[in-house]
């Protein structure tokens, strides 16, 4: 039996009861419904009944997610390539008939997974894929550096806010004895892991335990992040969330043998080669990481690679002030 226009209108009004209670009607729909509600006692009773029916749901609390959830997602995202993900999904796909008998559905999913694998393998030869891969490596590097930052912060927290610093030796300078030697105590105490100092974009799998046995040698590697040169005459540098000065950045291979080499464009602002020359991840004193596309900071036009734009270095150059950016190997 077909419904008349009045029934349809009544149905439409009743269909609006739940959206009205849940607050998902538009403003005009709400106004129209409330106008009807004001003059229709039966409708008002139904709204009241529906409201009471769902009211107990309000008591159902859901817990907050674990505090590590966001980090876990970001780490997983940074380290999962499309190929690994599809392979993992395929391996988790049930192969036997399930309780609801949807065998065909799983066959289809398996086929999709296989097709996706083939498509991915083919796409490895498509230049566009390298851009996506670069983005993933850049994100993975950022996470690595975030772990590195957390490690030095933890070190500072345990040492009255002082960043790791092994002090200056009389006969050495940072050209002969790399500046990142200051990280030695943080790495030895395993607050910073050697793997966190290797950019995933720079082919860096290492034997963590073996490396920890000879940290000093490890810190001499040329592909590790550049570290802020402490002011030799000043106090031990402290972690300070109010000062947004770079502490570390991706390695810049143009700094070699005491000389900062100009980039291919002839300027003193070459980017790290680690991310295809597109920029570098930088760890700041407040714990933030930024991927900057030029080594000259927007805030104060300070070049993070150089001290006063010098090209030839003696190894004794240092930060000019607490806010001066100067990162070296």
């Amino acid at each position, binding site marked *: 039996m077909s419904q008349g226009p009045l029934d349809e209108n009544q149905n439409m009004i009743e269909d609006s009861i739940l959206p009205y209670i849940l607050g998902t009607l538009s403003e005009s729909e709400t106004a129209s419904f409330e106008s009807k509600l004001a003059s229709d006692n039966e409708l008002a009773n139904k709204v009241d009944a*529906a409201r*009471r029916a769902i009211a107990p*749901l309000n*008591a*159902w609390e859901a817990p907050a997610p674990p505090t590590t959830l966001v980090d876990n997602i970001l780490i997983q995202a940074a380290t999962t390539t499309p190929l690994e993900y599809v392979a993992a999904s395929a391996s988790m796909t049930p192969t036997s008939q399930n309780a609801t008998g949807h065998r065909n559905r799983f066959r289809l999913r398996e086929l999709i997974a296989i097709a996706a694998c083939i498509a991915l393998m083919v796409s490895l030869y498509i230049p566009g894929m390298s851009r996506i891969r670069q983005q993933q490596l850049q994100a993975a590097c950022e996470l690595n550096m975030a772990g590195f930052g957390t490690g030095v912060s933890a070190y500072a927290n345990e040492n009255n806010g002082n960043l790791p610093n092994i002090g200056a030796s009389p006969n050495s300078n940072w050209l002969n004895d790399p500046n990142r030697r200051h990280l030695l105590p943080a790495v030895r105490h395993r607050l910073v892991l050697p793997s966190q100092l290797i950019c995933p974009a720079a082919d860096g799998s290492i034997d963590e335990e073996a490396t920890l046995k000879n940290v000093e040698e490890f810190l001499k590697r040329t592909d590790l992040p550049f570290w802020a040169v402490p002011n030799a005459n000043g106090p031990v540098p402290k972690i300070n969330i109010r000062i947004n000065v770079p502490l570390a950045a991706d390695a810049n291979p143009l700094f070699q043998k005491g000389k900062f080499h100009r980039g291919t464009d002839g300027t003193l602002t070459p980017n790290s080669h680690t991310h295809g020359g597109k920029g570098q991840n930088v760890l700041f004193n407040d714990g933030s990481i930024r991927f900057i596309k030029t080594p000259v900071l927007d805030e104060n036009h300070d070049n993070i690679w150089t001290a006063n734009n010098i090209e030839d270095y003696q190894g004794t150059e240092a930060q000019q002030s607490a806010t001066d950016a100067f990162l070296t190997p």
Partner: protein
Amino acid sequence: MNAPTDEQLLASHLSGDPQAFRTLVERHSTELYQFVYRFTNRKSSAEDVVQDTFIQVHLAGQSFDTNRRFKPWLFTIAANKARDHLRSRTRKREVPLDAQVGGEDDDGQRFLDLLSDEVTSPTAQLEEAEQSKFVQQIVEEMPAHLSEILILAYFHRFPYRDIADMLDIPLGTVKSRLHAAVAQFGTLYRQRAGPESDPTD
């Protein structure tokens, strides 16, 4: 300056801005976790599903239809994964108490017809945590297709049209299914809470 929309953040993520993906995760992970938790009733499942969901967004963001909104798409992925997760566990009981109410046709009884005026108020004696657990158990007894729509509509306030897109069902089915869900919840709640709250009932 207004915060970037989800859709803008996804576009930034696809063009290589790592901060954009982090912002998306920070913005939605709590609500998504709570949705999946209510759907699966397990913290570990919620954590796994939310992680898988965001990884899929990360890897398959290129396939996002820019004419759609991001949040319903995100919840669609999560709902699909949560359903897969439930299937892989021992299937929960799915016997509707009232087949017609549990049906998906518009011809089924409307929840308003089923609601009596004697819907009892919540049992005053239950402590908050107990009450929460009590409601959770009732929803757990409901068929998945009803509990899912109840959670999406009640806790996440998705409009009917979004829910229709998310579950890939007609708008009319969303209405009838939600009505059935509310009716069944009301009936179950009355049955379970009634004798405790009112011995004479």
